């Protein structure tokens, strides 16, 4: 049986932890609101980009000089996995579910005899993946210094990927991130970014694609837009990730606060029982001592 003092200390420490988790939850809630509105504000750009690119792509696709970023290299031997995770932990299964998805994909590809290269963004993905795929990690970008993700961050990543692609270092690139559905549900998602894919509906619905005038011509516009689109897709994923991270942290910390509350309750009960038992014991000792006289 733990002594009263030990119990008191334990309760105090759980209370301190609860205060921290409570504060983290509230901070996450505030950050979530900001991350969510950032993700929403970025949506129109990505949507427009997709429609216009879809239009041009259908006009150019199949042509002899369609850019490789659109059509791919025609092979799929080397896969690049772009794993986007957070810089901080304590956010539930957020990081580990993205890593798990990427890891499973990597093993599946390796079983098919493909070469896998990994590009990590965020330490919390880099650390566990480094243990498994030390040699396959080709790049690691840390976003810790930045307050929020900016388009420039996404652009820097996209430029690295474009450079690797034009150097022929991979054939297919897929990004892994967590799509924000709601505070309690974030879906780890894999999205192919090179060669570029467009929702079929966007391309099919706009039958007017062919009637557009292009200045300069389609191929040149496409050559300009495709790298931009890459950056936009990565930016979108980073923002979704940001919102997911905060949402995930919020619910994880909410849980932790509740658990701490329960623990405090239980331990207070034990503490009171022990205290009562001590008093009773002392009383019995006094009484029996008096009777013995």
């Amino acid at each position, binding site marked *: 049986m733990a002594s009263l003092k030990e119990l008191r200390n334990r309760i105090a420490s759980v209370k301190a932890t609860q205060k921290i988790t409570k504060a983290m939850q509230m901070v996450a809630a505030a950050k979530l609101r900001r991350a969510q509105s950032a993700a929403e504000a970025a949506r129109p750009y990505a949507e427009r980009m997709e429609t216009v690119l879809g239009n041009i792509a259908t006009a150019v696709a199949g042509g002899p000089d369609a850019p490789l970023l659109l059509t791919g290299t025609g092979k799929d031997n080397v896969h690049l996995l772009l794993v986007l995770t957070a810089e901080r932990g304590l956010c539930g299964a957020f990081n580990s579910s993205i890593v798990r998805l990427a890891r499973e994909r990597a093993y599946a590809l390796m079983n098919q005899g493909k070469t896998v290269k990994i590009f990590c963004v965020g330490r919390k993905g880099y650390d566990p993946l480094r243990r498994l795929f030390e040699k396959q990690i080709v790049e690691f970008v840390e976003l810790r210094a930045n307050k929020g993700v900016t388009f420039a961050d996404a652009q820097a990543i996209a430029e690295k990927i474009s450079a690797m692609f034009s150097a022929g270092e991979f054939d297919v690139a897929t990004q892994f991130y967590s799509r924000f559905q709601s505070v309690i549900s974030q879906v780890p998602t894999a999205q192919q970014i090179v060669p570029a894919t467009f929702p079929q509906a966007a391309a099919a619905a706009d039958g007017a694609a062919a009637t557009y005038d292009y200045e300069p011509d389609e191929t040149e516009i496409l050559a*300009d837009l495709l790298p931009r689109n890459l950056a936009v897709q990565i930016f979108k994923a980073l923002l979704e990730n940001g919102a997911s991270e905060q949402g995930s942290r919020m619910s994880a910390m909410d849980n932790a606060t509740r658990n701490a509350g329960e623990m405090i309750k239980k331990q207070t009960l034990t503490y009171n029982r022990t205290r009562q038992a001590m008093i009773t014991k002392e009383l019995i000792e006094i009484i029996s001592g008096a009777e013995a006289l």
Partner: protein
Amino acid sequence: MASFPFELVSPERLVYSGAVTEVVVPGAEGEFGILAGHAPFVSTLKPGVLTIKGDGPTRKLFVRGGFAEANPQGLTILAETAVPLAELPADKLALMIREAAEDVEDARDPVIRQKRAAYLDDLKAAAAAIEADGRAH
């Protein structure tokens, strides 16, 4: 004059959305004006000044990187950077020009060098246009 819906979107947010009568766009192959009912048209942008004319006062913004899509239903511009001239810090453009000049120096590949040089020229032209605009006010 007939007005038409116009949207200016940057990756971070929707910068401008509303009815306008005329927009002058710095296109990659020269400036062009868009009026209501323009034929379907897509052009990339060069760094420069975008002018929006509508009911209110004429607005001018510095835009860089992106493209414009016009059709009879309206005009959409996607720009990586879109800042009202008034809010553009004076040294920001100078910094961008300096960086672009360094990029030109660094480029070994003649094709890339030429591209970067063209970009630098566009930037300088934009800076000159902005300065001229400032004097006019």
